[in-house]
């Protein structure tokens, strides 16, 4: 940059003292540009984002999506985001919700509860989201629920910690999928009967793992079995061998609950120690989400897994399921994305798709126009029946009125030749019978 000298502004004394006010040097230019750019950027972006708060009753319906796009749950969050976006695209192609276009705004929780809370406020207060399809990270969703409730906004969790629709649930918190209570009810009796009566649970040291331990222990002990002390692994652990060596020798069923890199570490290190030779390996879908058994080179072979939505389409073989897979772009055997190596977090990500359609059904049934009509949506969601359809490809289900929990079909599968082969199906009616209502959120005030 060249600077034209202006006699009215610069003197030799100024030059000697380095006075920036006297003449625009490179430094002062950059300082000014920096400050000016920051101010202009602030004004521009802030204006563009906050104007959505002015959405009118007849304008677009803004739905927020609270997703783990980065951080520990990013491999799942990618699919939650993709499924939610695909659902909104389809809904808009079908004419929107009650004739109104749906505008989807997604914020990244960074797989961090504190950031997630900030981003939730951003979705609701900055972007004007009327409803939020929320996090699959148990810590994030549990931190989000009090804020969503305070801001009087319906929040769908998709993580499994049962507290979200239990002791920390509110009139505004819903979950169409299963929680640890439901998964224990669906899978533990079958595993107890078919795999063994002495259990050890190994899981990450955070809400999801603790919640699984608590719920499974209750079921196994009620059936007359024994559950050893749990083994909780720090979330940042890389080497699981020190934890695997703590597993008691008399264990008949090793119930593991991990995700992402910890899952890979668990399966490969457990296999190398030959644990599957002395005990039966049992898990929930989260442990194999976004992972193809083939990529584990046989380490997951023989593991029993409770699925919420069978990865192999042939086990829920209908047009809705296949159309759904086509819409989100995955194959019908391994759940792999077309043109990439990514594997769908299929047992959880369907909730972002279905929650959009659940909201559509509730909004249209209640005649919702603006936020002041939220009570109608909440009442419509409580006890809502969802038929097996393209909007609900996981299958017919009920959003139970009292605890706002999804009552769905579950599947117990086994990894055989790198495929998840379903061994038995637990029908939603049986699941409902095995998980009596413990909390009634429907009596809380809106």
């Amino acid at each position: 940059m060249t600077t034209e000298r202006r006699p009215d502004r610069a003197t030799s004394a100024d030059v000697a003292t380095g006075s920036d006010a006297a003449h625009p040097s490179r430094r002062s230019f950059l300082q000014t540009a920096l400050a000016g750019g920051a101010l202009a950027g602030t004004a521009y972006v802030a204006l563009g984002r906050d104007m959505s708060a002015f959405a009118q009753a007849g304008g677009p319906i803004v739905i927020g999506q609270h997703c783990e796009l980065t951080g520990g749950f990013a491999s799942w969050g990618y699919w939650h985001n993709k499924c939610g976006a695909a659902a909104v695209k389809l809904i808009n192609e079908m004419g929107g919700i009650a004739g109104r276009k749906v505008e989807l705004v997604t914020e990244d929780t960074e797989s961090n509860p504190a950031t997630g809370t900030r981003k939730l406020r951003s979705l609701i207060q900055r972007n004007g989201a009327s409803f939020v399809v929320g996090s699959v990270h148990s810590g994030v969703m549990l931190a989000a629920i009090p804020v969503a409730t305070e801001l009087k906004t319906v929040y769908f969790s998709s993580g499994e910690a049962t507290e979200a629709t239990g002791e920390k649930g509110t009139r505004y918190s819903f979950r169409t999928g299963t929680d640890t209570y439901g998964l224990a009810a669906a899978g533990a009796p079958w595993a107890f009967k078919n795999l063994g009566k002495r259990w050890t649970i190994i899981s990450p040291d955070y809400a999801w793992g603790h919640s699984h331990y608590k719920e499974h222990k209750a079921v196994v002990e009620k059936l007359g079995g024994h559950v050893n002390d749990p083994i909780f692994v720090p979330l940042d652990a890389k080497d699981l061998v020190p934890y695997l060596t703590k597993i008691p020798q008399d264990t008949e069923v090793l119930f593991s609950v991990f995700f992402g890199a910890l899952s890979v570490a668990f399966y490969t290190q457990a296999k190398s120690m030959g644990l599957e030779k002395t005990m039966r390996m049992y898990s929930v879908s989260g442990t194999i989400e976004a992972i193809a058994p083939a990529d584990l080179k046989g380490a997951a072979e023989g593991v029993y897994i409770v699925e919420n939505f069978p990865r192999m389409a042939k086990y829920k073989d209908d047009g809705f399921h296949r159309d759904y897979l086509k819409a989100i772009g995955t194959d019908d055997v391994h759940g792999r994305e077309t043109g990439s190596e990514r594997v769908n977090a299929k047992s959880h990500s369907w909730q972002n798709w279905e929650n959009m359609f659940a909201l559509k059904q509730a909004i249209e049934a209640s005649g919702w126009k603006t936020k002041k009509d939220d009570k109608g949506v909440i009442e419509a969601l409580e006890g809502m029946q969802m038929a097996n359809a393209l909007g609900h490809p996981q299958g017919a289900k009920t959003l139970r009125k009292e605890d706002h929990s999804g009552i769905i079909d579950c599947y117990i599968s086994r990894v055989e030749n790198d495929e998840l082969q379903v061994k038995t199906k637990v029908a939603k009616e049986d699941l409902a019978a095995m998980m009596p209502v413990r909390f009634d959120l429907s009596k809380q005030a809106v």
Partner: protein
Amino acid sequence: MSGGAAAWIGRGGLALLGAALLAVPFVLPELGYGFWVNIVTEILIWSLLAASVNLLFGYVGLLSFGQALFFGFGMYGATLAVIHWEAGFWTGLLAGTLAATAMAAVAGALAVRLTWHYFAIITVVFSLIFYFAAMSNKTLTGGDDGLSFSAPAVFDMAGVTVTLADPLAQYFSVLGVVAACYAIMGVVVRSPLGLAFAAVRENDRRARLIGIDVYRTRLVAFVLAGALAGVSGALFAFFGRYASASYMVYHVSGEAVVWAIVGGIGTLLGPLFGTALLIVFRELVSTVWENYLFAVGGLTVLVVMFAPLGLAGLWRGALGRLTAPRAAPAEAPADPVAPSADARAVPGGR
């Protein structure tokens, strides 16, 4: 113009800042920027953590990467008081501040015996020890998941209850506490104690020779900074209705160091401006780019390169140029407690 004029301009700027902060919750929502009231609240809270770094580094010459420890103690003190004792805002704030102050007294008794990088390292070590202890003590702290709670009452008397769920109550409670902290800090750094801080920072041997108890002076500064960080942590817990051990890790302290340096160390309000710049920048960029931390880092590097005395240094420079006689070299207004160039360059002040 003279130094007196500079002082008047400074006071005018402060009054303007005060008026703007008072107007925030009324004006921004009217303009459709209601969400930004939260961001301003967050800036106020985090700026106290940066101010605690500034009190140690800018005024006493001790660079601490352990302020997150006291932030965490403040956070948990407040949260546990709300959860277990059903404490309101003020009781919780007191509990958090006391917890942080007590921890700072214990850690400081050992840490301030050291200076330079040894001091920085021991503050990181303290932070890590308690971070891992908090993460593993899940029953008490909630570990990585943290603990969440509903908005407590700010005012509960004669059948009238106002909670933090009321946006105005939340904003003015935070603003009031933060303003009080800055006011106290302003009094302290201009008091004889503040002069002792500056003396220790500039040359601790000379300070000792003139009768200043260097150890005690550093310890007092450390405990005061710990208390400030604790207030910040308690306020942040109330703001987020949440506490997590993840806030006790040293990178949270690192962020506060960056905010303080960008704002201008050794200046009372520098940390507030540094925090404001970087949080607003983060908030804007993160909505359009998930890897926004690259941009935040880039901005920080630019500010440090082209405004090494921080935003407060820019302000002082501008003020100096405005008020200095035309023929005289432009210098910042004299400030007896502002760090010398040497002290800024070398933690420990030598």
